[in-house]
């Protein structure tokens, strides 16, 4: 005789670690909204009215709010991803293991470089 416990649907609420994991996975939700908005933008290029309607939609405060959330969510996801990366892809140079902190710092440097480049490309106005 024996019994096998089953996992309830709320298993991820039981522990701080699982809640942080679910938060990481949930970062995809605002990103899906951002991608849909951008896709709608591509389709709106068909006509001038559609494009101005799309521009109006993108300027709505709640849309800007969700897009700001998407930025925060992707930065949080990047944080977790960068921390996990050295464990999944350990790099050896000769007989020496590249320190994890160096790999994490390198990835953040890359992120900042891309952000600076985009600011330079698109941030200057007209």
């Amino acid at each position, binding site marked *: *005789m*024996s*019994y096998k*416990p089953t*996992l309830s649907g709320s298993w*991820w609420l039981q*522990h701080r*670690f*699982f809640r942080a*994991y679910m938060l990481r996975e949930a970062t995809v939700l605002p990103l899906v909204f951002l991608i849909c908005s951008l896709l709608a933008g591509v389709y709106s290029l068909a006509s001038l009215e559609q494009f101005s309607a799309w521009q109006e939609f993108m300027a709505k405060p709640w849309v800007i709010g969700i897009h700001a959330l998407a930025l925060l969510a992707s930065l949080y996801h990047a944080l977790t991803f960068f921390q996990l990366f050295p464990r999944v892809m350990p790099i050896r140079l000769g007989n020496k293991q590249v320190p994890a902190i160096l790999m994490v710092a390198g990835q953040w440097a890359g992120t900042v470089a891309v952000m600076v480049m985009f600011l330079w490309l698109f941030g200057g106005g007209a």
Partner: protein
Amino acid sequence: MQRDMHKDIHIQRYLPEENAEPFWQTFQVPYDDTTSILDVLNYIKEELDPTLSFRWSCRMAICGSCGYMVNGIPKLGCKDFVRNYPSALRIGPLAHFTVERDLMVAMDEFLDHLEAVKPYLINEPQDKQAPHRQTPAQLAKYKQFSNCINCGLCYAACPQFGLNPEFVGPGAIALAHRYNLDSRDQGQGQRMPILNSHDGVWSCTFVGFCSDVCPKGVDPAAAVNQGKVESAKSMLIQMFRGGA
């Protein structure tokens, strides 16, 4: 050191001949700063209730027998101390496994997965008398993963294993990876089909709690996810070869 303190210890009991359902029982146990969870269980068995069933052996975190859930977290009874729990202390059997009696779980599911990944050196040495040679650098590649003591804490921490018992799981995959990384081993081709399968490495979503609870610092989550890189490579190679 503080002595002569007493604490209420709540233990999840399961006595199938008396009660079809598991139930909680509370024992008052003396403790000091050096009292481990295993000491508590032994005290209860010797002084309070000889019917309490639990597994243990070495008392020094190497046999891997005394895994329990302590306040919902998988722990080795011998490596965890009462002093770490200033408030309530609840001890239950390892999560996600079939419970046979009190704190004893059936390890068969884990052992079946372990056996399936062939966790041993597979090679055909040209000269059977010659020793296996290995450099320190070759040893360093897999050494961390060879510290696994098969305690099963990582399985009790893994919600993916809890949801799908067919998932090969962190411990077995860590050991498969350990042998795949071993320069003396030629068995990767035999292990990859099971790692590539749906219930292999791809069932892992990198929750990462398995590595957090591992008492030996094996980092099974890293092994599983390094296994994903290997699995992707092996699947690509198969695709280009045109084989299934």
